């Protein structure tokens, strides 16, 4: 049976896509929201660390599966290997309704004003493609507010002297600290840092008909047992479906953007749950498949006018892949500081995100989420510690409740060679070339990481840790859960993929609304910005639609 033509297709029901589906359908556009995965609930997964989305050594419960998906990972020496979704080198986020927003740690950061003007703030960095965004914080501010109120954020930015300006407070009060975070908060104040509670996409009080958080241990990497964590799957996506004109089509793998002879998008082809190839046509196509899968889809969609992939006339699709150069420090304490009050991360400082002498950018610093038993067995110990045997077991026993870690997502300086391509000779289950990921971090990123890790270590020392050590990232390409930047927005079609509204430069009815759009990725976790961009892009489409533009 032929699928009925709709006004808009949205590919991907994660952070960006969920928002767009809701905004367009509420404005009266008929929508099909495609998702390759299905619904993923707490009841089906539970508290299993070995399949949770943070390290998944057995398999990734929230997807994608190891049977149908693979990628090619290229290391710094050019060696290539095939990797599966539960390998770190796959750079997985998730594949289910809501994607990473079902199981994330839910930190809800607004980027700072400087994060949108990195090049004018710091100048050109050799070897980089550092650039300003074509939009400013002021442009996005109302949309951040929308995310905070519609999806739900608990926090109090007025305690953070470095927070960007805002017109409205967070809708829910901030979370209290556990014992570890209290100790860290007091220490931070003693050494002149400015600690404040991390804004969270979790309910500190009942909100939107769902209950308050009950502070379990297994939060990041897991679905929430009481539905107190706010993702797109329990907010905007149900709102979209409630309009009656948005169909969520799950277990549907979109493989290609179809085009007409003039190079416009006409819809998509996809494989349904039974692996039948189908087509769906629409007036508008919005890609929100993540910073890896959106460029892959574009590169796999070619015709006479777009021989190298749709939107890829100047070879910018897939370029500038970024994540964060995560760094920090760990420390051991004489006293038990663990009190099993989840999820753990709650205190942060923004003292070192910008204005660091001789450093480009920086990072927010926060205490780490509770380390689960398996994770703690392999990381988080001083360099040179026993990896097994009696000494290892004794370390576990002695220190599990006596350690703290501070981590910071160092803002990376984008480079052209860190990228997503397609591997023409490696195909997925549906016969499509898979994503190939290669690249590196600039020396500048490592320098910043060393600077930030030092601040983290000082914080732990001030808190009374008797032993501390730093964590400096390797030089390999980032991406993973914070992947972004691969279809950057910009004013110049020769050095960007979309205009400032997320519209692909030479394809009038093709939009992008996910992490791919980021020009730079801030010194913060990215999801609030991705959601805000979802509202921003939607607003443009809806305004055009209401003016009578049918994108035909």
């Amino acid at each position, binding site marked *: 049976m032929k699928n009925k033509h709709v006004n808009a297709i949205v590919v991907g029901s994660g952070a960006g896509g969920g928002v767009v589906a809701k905004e367009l359908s509420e404005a009266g556009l008929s929508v099909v929201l495609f998702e390759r995965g299905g619904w993923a609930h707490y009841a089906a997964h539970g508290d299993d660390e070995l399949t949770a989305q943070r390290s998944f050594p057995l398999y990734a419960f929230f997807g994608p599966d190891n049977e*149908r998906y693979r990628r090619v990972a290229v290391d710094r020496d050019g060696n290539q290997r*095939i990797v599966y979704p539960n390998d770190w080198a796959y750079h997985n986020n998730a594949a289910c309704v809501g994607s990473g927003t079902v199981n994330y740690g839910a930190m809800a950061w607004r980027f700072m004003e400087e994060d949108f003007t990195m090049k004018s703030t710091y100048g050109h960095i050799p070897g980089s493609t550092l650039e300003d965004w074509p939009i400013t914080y002021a442009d996005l501010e109302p949309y951040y507010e929308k995310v905070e109120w519609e999806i739900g954020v608990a926090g109090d930015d007025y305690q953070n002297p470095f927070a960007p300006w805002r017109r409205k407070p967070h809708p829910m009060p901030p979370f209290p600290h556990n014992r570890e975070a209290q100790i860290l908060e007091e220490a931070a104040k003693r050494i002149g840092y400015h600690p404040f509670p991390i804004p969270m996409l979790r309910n500190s009080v009942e909100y939107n008909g769902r209950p308050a958080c009950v502070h379990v241990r297994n939060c990041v990497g897991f679905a929430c047992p009481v539905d107190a964590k706010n993702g797109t799957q329990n907010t905007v996506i149900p709102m979209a479906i409630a309009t009656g004109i948005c169909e969520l089509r799950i277990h549907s793998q979109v493989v290609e953007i179809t085009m007409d002879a003039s190079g416009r998008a006409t819809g998509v082809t996809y494989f349904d749950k039974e692996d039948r190839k189908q087509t769906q046509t629409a007036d508008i196509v919005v890609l929100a498949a993540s910073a890896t899968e959106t460029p892959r889809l574009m590169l796999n969609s070619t015709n006479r006018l777009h021989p190298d992939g749709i939107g890829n006339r100047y070879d910018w699709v897939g370029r500038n892949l970024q994540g964060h150069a995560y760094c920090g420090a760990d420390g051991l304490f004489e006293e038990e500081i663990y009190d099993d009050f989840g999820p753990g991360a709650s205190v942060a400082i923004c003292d070192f995100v910008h204005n660091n002498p001789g450093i480009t950018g920086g990072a927010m610093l926060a205490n780490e989420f509770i380390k689960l038993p398996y994770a703690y*067995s392999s990381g988080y110990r001083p360099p040179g510690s026993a990896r097994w045997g009696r000494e290892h077991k004794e370390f576990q026993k002695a220190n599990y409740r006596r350690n703290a870690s501070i981590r910071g997502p160092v803002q990376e300086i984008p480079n052209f060679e860190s990228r997503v391509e397609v591997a023409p000779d490696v195909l997925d289950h549906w016969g499509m070339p898979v994503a190939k990921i290669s690249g590196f971090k600039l020396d500048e990123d490592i320098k910043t990481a060393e600077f930030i890790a030092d601040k983290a270590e000082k914080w732990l020392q001030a808190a009374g840790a008797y032993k501390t050590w730093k964590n400096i990232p390797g030089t390999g390409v980032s991406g993973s859960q914070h992947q972004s930047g691969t279809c950057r927005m910009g004013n110049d079609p020769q050095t960007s993929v979309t205009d400032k509204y997320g519209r692909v430069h030479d394809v009038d009815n093709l939009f992008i609304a996910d992490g791919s759009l980021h020009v730079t990725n801030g010194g913060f976790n990215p999801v609030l910005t991705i959601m805000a961009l979802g509202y921003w892009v939607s607003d443009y489409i809806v305004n055009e639609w209401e003016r009578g533009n049918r994108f035909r």
Partner: protein
Amino acid sequence: MRLKTGSLSNGITRRCFLKVSAIWAGGAWIVGVPALSANPYRVLTDQEAEIMDALADCIIPPGDFYGGKDALVTRFIDRQIGPYGHLQKEKEMYQTCLSALNRGSKAEFGRNFVDLFEEQKIVYLTDIEGGKYNHQSNERGWGRFSPSAFFNTVRNHCMMGFYGSPDHGGNKDYVSYRMLGLF
């Protein structure tokens, strides 16, 4: 294009174990261990299981809390490399390397691995981990596997079996959770 992988063609087959995964996704074992068999394992032979138990007790030694053996780390590994497990691609490695480990023990110490003194086992494993035997892996039956890479993998699997959820076959009586004061 330089591809350093032997499994390219393998990588594009369309094997699909999704239905089986769904059984796992429930977090519980729907397919049980055959009750009548004397050997409770699906893949490992008695001898392999004995070596694995000894290895698990070196990696996580017994004391006031179970070691790897009593925590049933071997059962965890056996299930995971078995027909419904999630580490099936490691099955051949275990089948090759556990006996190679024993062969090396006889060559170096004149005794089966399980019969070595604890100190000897630790010296031997530390040498394996450090790569001492990597260059002679062929003579001792390690096949295409590097002894040090095998050790790293077993170490990781033991940690998964000991510290992961008991639903997967290890962590008997929630021993690791109790040890960390979480239970």
